[in-house]
C-alpha cells in the first residue's frame, strides 16, 4: 500500500470545501470537463494507452521513489479518470485531493508531453482541474491571495502605484552611482521597447531594476517603463484557473505597451510571465500571437553580448551552472542562447544533465510556489532530483533566469543543504561587464 500523503491544512481549500454541495460540484465539473466541446480533452482521453511511459518525465515521480501517484498519467488517473468513472458525481473529498494534485503536485511544466509517445498534454488536464477548482472557489490560500492582488492592483504583490514609481526612481539613482547618466526612462512614448518586470522586483529585489538601468544605459538603448498599472507581466491567475483575471492583467500589460507606442516589449528574467504574456493570455483574448513581439531577457542579453553592445571585462571565475526555466526553454527554445550567455560571462560554466528542453522543472513553477508556506515541504521533497542534479555539477553558483526558479531552487538548496548560491543573469552581467 502507498503511504498516505502528509496532511496539510490550507484554508483556501478546506474552508471552501465546506460550502460545496454535490449538485454544485457536479454542475461545475460537467461544464468544464466536457469532452463534447474540447477536441483536446476528448482525443487525449481516448488516446492514452495507459502505458506509463510518461512517468519518468516527472520530477515529482522521480523524486518520490517512483510513487506511481506522482507519475503524470497517475495524476490523470486520480483526477480525470475518476470524474469519468463516477460519471461526474464526485464529492468534496475528491475535490480536495484533485486540488492538491493539480495545484501542488503538478507544475504544468509539460516535460511529460515530451515523453509520452502521443504527446498527450497532461498539464492541460491539470489546468482543467484547476479551472474546476477555481470555479468552485477551491484554491490554495496564498495562491488565491496572489490572484486577488492581480485582480486588484494588476500586479502580483499588492504594490501600490506610488511605490512602483518610487522604486524605479530610487533604483535609477542607485544605477547612477555605478554608471553616470544611468536612467530608467518613465512613460517615454515612442521608445524602442517597453521593459516589463514582475512585482517581486520593485517589492523585494529592486536592485534588479538598477541592473537593467546599468545594462541599458551602457548599451545605449532607447527604452521606457510605464508609470501606470500594466508594468507587471506576471500572472498567477493563469495558474489558479481564474482566466478572467488572467486576461484582464494581460490585456492591460499589452495595452500599456501599445499606449507607449513601443515596437516590442522586453521582459525581465521570469518564465511563467513569458507564458502568460505570450501564450495563455493572448489566446484567451483572441490574439493568435502577441500584438507586438515579446523578447525574453535571455534573448535580450544574448543580443547585447553577441552584438558587442555589452562587453565582458573579466569573466566570472567561480564554477557556475544553470537552470533552464521550463517556460522559456521548453516553452521558447532559448536553451542554446542561455548557454551562449553563460559561456560569454563565466569562465567555468558547468552544464547540467539532463539539459535544455529536457531539464527538470524547479518545482516552484506553475503557480506551485505561490501556494505558499503550507506546501513548501511537499514542493521541495518533490524535487530531490533537482538537488542531485545541481550537486553533480560541482558548481558554487546556479544561474536562474526566472523568478520562480530562483526562489524554488533557493528552497531546494536550503532543504538539501547544498553549498550553492542562486543568481540572476543580470547580477553576473553587471558584475563582469565593462562599465
Amino acid at each position, binding site marked *: 500500500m502507498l503511504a498516505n500523503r502528509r496532511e496539510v491544512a490550507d484554508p483556501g481549500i478546506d474552508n471552501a470545501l465546506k460550502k460545496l454541495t454535490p449538485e454544485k460540484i457536479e454542475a461545475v465539473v460537467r461544464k468544464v470537463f466536457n469532452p463534447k466541446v474540447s477536441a483536446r480533452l476528448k482525443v487525449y482521453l481516448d488516446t492514452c494507452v495507459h502505458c506509463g511511459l510518461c512517468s519518468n518525465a516527472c520530477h515529482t515521480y522521480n523524486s518520490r521513489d517512483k510513487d506511481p501517484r506522482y507519475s503524470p498519467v497517475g495524476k490523470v488517473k486520480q483526477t480525470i479518470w475518476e470524474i469519468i468513472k463516477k460519471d461526474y458525481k464526485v464529492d468534496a473529498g475528491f475535490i480536495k485531493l484533485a486540488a492538491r494534485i493539480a495545484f501542488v503536485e503538478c507544475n504544468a511544466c509539460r516535460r511529460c508531453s515530451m515523453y509520452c509517445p502521443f504527446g498527450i498534454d497532461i498539464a492541460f488536464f491539470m489546468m482543467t482541474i484547476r479551472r474546476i477548482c477555481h*470555479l468552485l472557489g477551491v484554491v490554495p490560500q496564498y495562491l488565491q*491571495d496572489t490572484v486577488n492582488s492581480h485582480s486588484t492592483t494588476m500586479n502580483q504583490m499588492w504594490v*501600490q502605484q*506610488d511605490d512602483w514609481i518610487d522604486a524605479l526612481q530610487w533604483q535609477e539613482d542607485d544605477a547612477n552611482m555605478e554608471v553616470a547618466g544611468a536612467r530608467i526612462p*518613465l512613460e517615454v512614448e*515612442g521608445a524602442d521597447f517597453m521593459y516589463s518586470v514582475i512585482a517581486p522586483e520593485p517589492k523585494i529585489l529592486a536592485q534588479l531594476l538598477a541592473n537593467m538601468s546599468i545594462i541599458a544605459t551602457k548599451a545605449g538603448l532607447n527604452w521606457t517603463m510605464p508609470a501606470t498599472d500594466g508594468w507587471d507581466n506576471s500572472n498567477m491567475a493563469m495558474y489558479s484557473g481564474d482566466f478572467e483575471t488572467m486576461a484582464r492583467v494581460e490585456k492591460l500589460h499589452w495595452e500599456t505597451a501599445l499606449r507607449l507606442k513601443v515596437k516590442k516589449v522586453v521582459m525581465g528574467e521570469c518564465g511563467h510571465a513569458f507564458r502568460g504574456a505570450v501564450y495563455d493570455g493572448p489566446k484567451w483574448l*483572441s*490574439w493568435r500571437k502577441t500584438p*507586438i*513581439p515579446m523578447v525574453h531577457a535571455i534573448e535580450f542579453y544574448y543580443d547585447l553580448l553577441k552584438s558587442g553592445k555589452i562587453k565582458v571585462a573579466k569573466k566570472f571565475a567561480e564554477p557556475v551552472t544553470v537552470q533552464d526555466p521550463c517556460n522559456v526553454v521548453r516553452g521558447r527554445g532559448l536553451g542554446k542562447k542561455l548557454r551562449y550567455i553563460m559561456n560569454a560571462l563565466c569562465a567555468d560554466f558547468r552544464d547540467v544533465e539532463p539539459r535544455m528542453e529536457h531539464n527538470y522543472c524547479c518545482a516552484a513553477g506553475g503557480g506551485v510556489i505561490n501556494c505558499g508556506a503550507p506546501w513548501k515541504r511537499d514542493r521541495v521533497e518533490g524535487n530531490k532530483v533537482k538537488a542531485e542534479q545541481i550537486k553533480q555539477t560541482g558548481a558554487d553558483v546556479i544561474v536562474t533566469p526566472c523568478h520562480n526558479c530562483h526562489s524554488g531552487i533557493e528552497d531546494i538548496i536550503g532543504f538539501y543543504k547544498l553549498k550553492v548560491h542562486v543568481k540572476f543573469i543580470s547580477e553576473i552581467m553587471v558584475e563582469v561587464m565593462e562599465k
Partner: protein
Amino acid sequence: MVDAINWDEKERMLLDLGEVKGCFKRCLEPLMNVMGDQAAVPVQTLADKWTMLVNGKPWDLLCDRIWHPRFSPDGRLTALVQLDDQWALAVDGVLSEERFDFIWNPKTSPDGAHIAALVKKDNRHTVLVDGKTWQHNYISIRDYALDHQGNVAATVQVEPLAEADIDKFFQGTWSVVYNDVLWQNKYINAYTPVIGPDGRTVSAEVRTDRLDYTIAIDDRAWSTKYECVWEQAHHPKTNAVVAPALHSGGWSMASNDGFIWDKKYAQLWHPKFSPDGTRLAVIASPTFGRWTIAVDDQPWKATFGDVVLDPVFGADSRHVAVVVKDNERWSVAVDGTVWGDTFDMCWDPVISPDGATTLAKVEKGGRYAIAINGRTGGQSFDGLWSPLFSPDKKSVLVKCREGDRFYTRVVGIGELLS
C-alpha cells in the same frame, strides 16, 4: 486653444537646442504642445538640478527631480517635481500649494481646463484637482477619471485587508468615490470609473461575486451578471451605458437590459460612441485571431491579424478611422478600407472636418512623417507631434524637430505629399 493658432504664419522656429545644450548636463525627451507655440525639454543643470526649458527659456523653478512633463490641451505645461524629498505638481513653473509624499498619474480634462493627479499623504492616497486636495484620503486609489467640469471619480479601497485574508477580500473591499463622496456598496473589484456627459452619473466595472462581473451606475449594479466585462461607455446624448460583456463563451455589447447586439464575438472592447451618438464603434474579433472594428454590430469585412487600436470618429460622426497592425506592419484603416502603405508605427489618425481626408503621424526607418490618406511625401522629420488640420482643411499644422531645431509650420496638403 486650437482656435488661437495663427494659420498665416508659415514657419516658426521655437527652439534650437544646439545653442543651449552646452549650458546643461543633460537634456531628456522634448515635447511640443498642441497649438505648436511651445517646445519644452526637461534639463539637468550643471549644478545637478532639474528644470523645464520652454522655447529656450528655463523655468525659474529648480527641482531635485522632474518627470512626466505633459502639455495640457490648453497649452499649459505640467510636470511632477521633487523638492527636498517632497513632491508637487508644477504648472508652467508654478508649484501646487501643497507638498506631498508622492504624486503621480496627472490627467487633464479634454479641453485642458482642469488638471488632476493622485497624491500620497501620510501613507494614504487622495486626489489633487485644480490645485486642491480632497478632504478625505483612502487606503489606496487605482483608476480615476476627470471630466470636462473638473469632476473626479476614482476606484478606492475602503476596507483594510490583512495579508492573505481571502475571505474578507471576497466580501468586498473596493468601491468608487465621486468628488470625495463614497458609494455605499463594497465590491470585490472595481475598475475604470467613467463620468457621464451630464457630469453627475458615474459608472464603473464591478465584480460583485467571485465569478460575477457587471457594470454599476451610481452604485446600482446591473441585474444581469456576466463572466467578464470590459470598460463601458456613456452615450453622449442619452447617457445610457453600454459595455462589452462575456456570456457562455461569446462577447457582445450589453446594457442594463441585457445584450443589445445580436452577434457574438471572440472578443470585443473599447466601445466608442460617435460624437452625435448615432453610432457605436467597438474593437472586435469576429473569429479567433482576427481583428477589426464593428460599427453597430456590423464588423468590417477587412480583418487584421495582429492588433486594432481605438476607433476614432470624424467630427461629423460618419467616418471611423483606426490604427491597425497585420503581419508585423502598421497601417490605418478608414471605414473598413486599409491604406495601401504600411509603416513601422502609426499614431491615432485625424479625420478632416469634411471627412474627405485622414492623416496620421507615421514612422518609417526611424524617421517620422505625415501620411495623408495613406500616402507620404518627401518630408520626414527627426521628431513629430500630433498633426492638425487647418479649419479650411487645406493645410496641416506640422510640429516637428529637425536635428536640434524645433519648428511649427503650416504646410499645404499638396506640398506635404510632394
